[in-house]
């Protein structure tokens, strides 16, 4: 007999080693995430996948499922916390959707819509983060970085180039390019790299194709992020 836990009262089967998030999505239940990606080990930094398991808050992406657990995810309490996390991400960077090429394809924006985030709630930081347009094919707009490290991990673990890194601590943490000059043009980064095609927000942008797909016909214009995620999970 397969093992199972309860997610918001619904039985979810799992195999040993599967995380709460993997098992939930495989069973057709949506748990949100930004820094998690199926091709990489869990990172646990965005905390959007937070759930309450056996009364404790845990990251669903990094927590192995356990037999008989009662897990709360889609509840007013947990969704309220997720909304707060999204609001903190939105004020920490410079997220101006009207002027962003990624608008409509951005996972942070799509999660804002999913959880009905209407207000910034907190004071804006307005950090100073200059863009790097040095590379012939790719623009880096650090204003929108959420420190998910997907580009860092993809460049290091798949492309074998280690083009990106996070540096600084706490509120001073920021994304940097591993080159003496700090410029992307002075690395062997290519637009076909996995790292060039993994950013969930609008930091790593391919030049000259920004509006090839018009606003209104983009990924999250056609489906909400929960619909899209569950559809991909079942195919």
């Amino acid at each position: 007999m397969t093992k199972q836990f309860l997610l918001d009262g619904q039985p979810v089967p799992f195999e040993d080693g599967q995380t709460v998030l993997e098992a939930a999505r495989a069973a057709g239940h949506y748990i949100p995430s930004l820094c998690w990606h199926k091709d990489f080990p869990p990172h646990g930094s965005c905390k959007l996948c937070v759930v309450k398991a056996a009364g404790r808050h845990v990251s669903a992406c990094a927590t192995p499922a356990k037999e008989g657990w009662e897990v709360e995810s889609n509840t007013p309490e947990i969704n309220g916390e997720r909304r707060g996390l999204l609001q903190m991400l939105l004020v920490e960077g410079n997220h101006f959707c009207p002027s962003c090429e990624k608008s409509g394809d951005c996972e942070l924006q799509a999660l804002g819509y999913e959880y009905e985030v209407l207000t910034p709630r907190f004071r804006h930081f307005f950090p100073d983060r200059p863009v790097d347009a040095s590379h012939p094919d790719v623009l880096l707009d650090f204003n929108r970085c959420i420190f998910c490290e997907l580009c860092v991990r993809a460049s290091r673990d798949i492309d074998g180039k280690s083009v990106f890194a996070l540096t600084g601590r706490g509120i001073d943490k920021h994304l940097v390019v591993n080159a003496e000059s700090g410029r992307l043009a002075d690395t062997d980064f290519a637009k076909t790299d996995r790292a060039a095609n993994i950013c969930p927000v609008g930091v790593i942008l391919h030049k000259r194709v920004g509006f090839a797909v018009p606003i209104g016909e983009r990924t999250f214009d056609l489906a909400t992020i929960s619909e899209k995620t569950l559809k991909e999970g079942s195919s």
Partner: protein
Amino acid sequence: MSTLPARKLRVATASLAGCFGCHMSFLDIDEHLFELVDIIEFDRSPLTDIKEVGPCDIGIIEGGVCNSENVHVLREFRRNCKTLIALGACAVNGGLPAQRNHIPLAECLREVYQFRPGVENGQIPNDPELPLPLDKVRPIHEVVRIDYFIPGCPPSGPAIWKFLTDLIAGRTPRLTGGLLHYD
């Protein structure tokens, strides 16, 4: 059983550091304007040309706060309006005008009034009648308490209509089914 109030709801609107795009979008509710004028009347607004805001039920603010006059108008609205709404991206998070926030204000002014190509003997305007610019453009909730936020650049006519009708009918306003947009 309570009856509907006989008097119309009084509504004031203003554009601070905005482009009036949100006001244009408000007009995009098209024929709903006829339904709206049956239940509301306008106080201070670009539509009436009343200069000072009086006691109102609903205040709608477009644009962020970029100078001392914006702060004054916003505080007057808060003082007079029972419900104050931030309308559009600039009011919600500073929007386009806030793109100057990482440039020191003096540098900004010098670039425009002294060093811009074609400007000769330019100087930074210093008339006492001009409101002083703030060092940073701020979303309006950082200056006064705001009751509701409608994001979008601009929010669509249908989004504004849905929000206002929810509010006027006493429902919690919600933007769902594709009405919520940040761009």
